[in-house]
């Protein structure tokens, strides 16, 4: 898990095409996602996710 302030992260786009693998991964890790954000990997791609609200 990495914070959003990690300097290795470069924002590409939040228009992410959500594959079934990506959704399943989000379902699996959803309890660990909070307002601070989490970085995770699906295949060769790395994503950042944070909870809103």
């Amino acid at each position, binding site marked *: *898990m*990495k914070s959003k302030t990690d300097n*290795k*992260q*470069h*924002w*590409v*786009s*939040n*228009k*992410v095409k*959500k594959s*079934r693998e990506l*959704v*399943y991964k*989000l*379902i699996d*890790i*959803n309890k*660990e*996602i909070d307002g601070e*954000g*989490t*970085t*995770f*990997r699906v295949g*060769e*791609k*790395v*994503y*950042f*996710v*944070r*909870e*809103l*609200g």
Partner: protein
Amino acid sequence: MALAVSTLFLFLFILPGITFKQAYLSSAFSRQLKFSGILDEVFWALFPSIIMHFLAYALLVGLERVFSFTFDLKQLLSMALLQETGRQYADIFVSYLYYCTFVMSVSFFAGHASRKIIRGLKFDRKFKLFRFSNEWHYLLSGEFLDFPEVPDHPEQVSFKLVNALVSTGNQQVIYIGELIHFTLSDSGGLENIVLKDAKRRLLQDDLLERNRYYEIPGRYITIPYKTIVNINVRYFYLEEVTDDYSADEKLL
């Protein structure tokens, strides 16, 4: 007879207010069919009616100048109020009917335009006064994040995750998946939710094993709201980041 005709005239007078209200509340997320009390209903019929009559009158004055015709509303109304016989009422009824049809048309378009303006300026999200009655729309669309008391913005939402506890026979199943669509019912409630790439498990299996969910064949599942016991909606901001991470770095 005169009393019946006067009542008809009065009804036609307040009809534009009802037309305005129906047009304003005609979208699925704003439909309001609950009776809110006689005083409230009369007020919300009469108040917009008066405004619509003023608006329609101003439009008529403008149209008179453009198309060079004359329409004396004051004379028409005084005749409608002061006539004593049914025959005299009949003489002016058609003119009054034309006028009321015009006002109702104005009210209809004004109602729809008002709703679009309120939605366009996002007043319904910023001020409780303008908020429409169907809370499901705000909750499931993510517009709820625009309420003053809630941080973040709906524009940031890129993923909506729903946990729905569903009753099936004598068992309860938890569905979890991405919310991609929902339908609202005519009565102003929620009718269906559509989840994409959902998983499910029996509630009784909770915490029994690590990988509790099992996949559902097919990508989309529709769940009728009447079977849902409770629902949990979470909003996520999701971004793809460039892969500067080495393979051995521990990510989730």
